[in-house]
């Protein structure tokens, strides 16, 4: 009996894959590379992906930062308080702790470099935020002081900086009549980097907080 059920399930999924292949493979989309290349000069950055993420589709990036925050709020809802828990006592080898102590500043510099590099080559806010967040998690695992030192308003400020920066920008650009998240061409480069810094900081702290909130006591 169970073999029939398994075969039926396999057939169902195989049928779905076949339908997917039949409908998607013949498609011939034109792509958006040409319009992006045309508008790249005016976008304030020299790399297509960063321009799309922070300028042409800045709305998607804004909501993505919101999704990160909502996931963290969901994890906070499972805990008794909204404070990040203290690290559980663990036996950490001296070698590991020393190695992480040397690695962390280098990783911080690497994250800052990745953020700056995003203006003209692959890189940007999320890459930098991911490296920084992983560094915070490593620091915590090695017994150093990490994201757990943030409490109260400092924690909330770090968690909300990215979303708030976009919100402020949206309010200013809409009330100035330029539309939602519209960059003034002269200031576009500076504004993009400023937004990226806020997003990177928020992403790093949120990723580390996501990990910390799930730690087993």
């Amino acid at each position, binding site marked *: 009996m169970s073999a029939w059920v398994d075969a039926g399930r396999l057939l169902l*999924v195989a049928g779905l894959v076949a339908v997917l292949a039949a409908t998607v493979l013949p498609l011939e989309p034109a*792509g958006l590379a040409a319009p992006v290349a045309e508008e790249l000069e005016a976008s304030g950055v020299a*790399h*297509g*992906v960063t321009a*799309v*993420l922070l300028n042409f589709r800045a709305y998607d990036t804004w909501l993505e930062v919101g999704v990160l925050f909502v*996931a963290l709020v*969901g994890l906070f809802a499972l805990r008794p308080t909204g404070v990040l828990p203290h690290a559980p006592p663990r036996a950490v080898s001296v070698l590991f702790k020393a190695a992480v102590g040397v690695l962390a500043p280098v990783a911080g510099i690497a994250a800052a470099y990745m953020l700056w590099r995003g203006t003209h080559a692959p890189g940007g806010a999320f890459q930098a935020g991911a490296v920084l967040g992983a560094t915070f998690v490593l620091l915590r695992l090695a017994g150093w002081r990490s994201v757990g030192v943030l409490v109260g308003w400092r924690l909330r400020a770090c968690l909300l900086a990215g979303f708030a920066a976009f919100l402020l920008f949206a309010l200013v650009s809409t009330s100035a009549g330029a539309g939602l998240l519209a960059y003034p061409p002269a200031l576009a480069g500076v504004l993009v980097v400023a937004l990226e810094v806020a997003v990177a900081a928020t992403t790093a702290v949120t990723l580390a907080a996501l990990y910390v909130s799930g730690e087993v006591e």
Partner: protein
Amino acid sequence: MELFHLYAFCSMLLFGIALHGFLFQPHLVRKVLALNVMGTSIFLFLIAVAHRDRTPSPDPVPHALVLTGIVVAVSLTAFALGLILKLHKETGRTTLPSVRREAP
């Protein structure tokens, strides 16, 4: 049949395998892993679409979509794993009740 079709079909195959795992594996962590593989297969498809025309620079819009998708997948995974940990802490189990009733 160009390279794009190979990548696209691989991504759909991976999607099907992961969907099967997501629907029919009882252990919750396996479901989360299957969800991740489903997401990654879509990213593979998007990057294949971006590099389809072999123009000097690939289409940056699907690249941005993948970056956004990775962050959303990470958020989803973190939340799902937190829920599983809480479920395990409260009940000591890692499968959902309806699945346990049907299990032989």
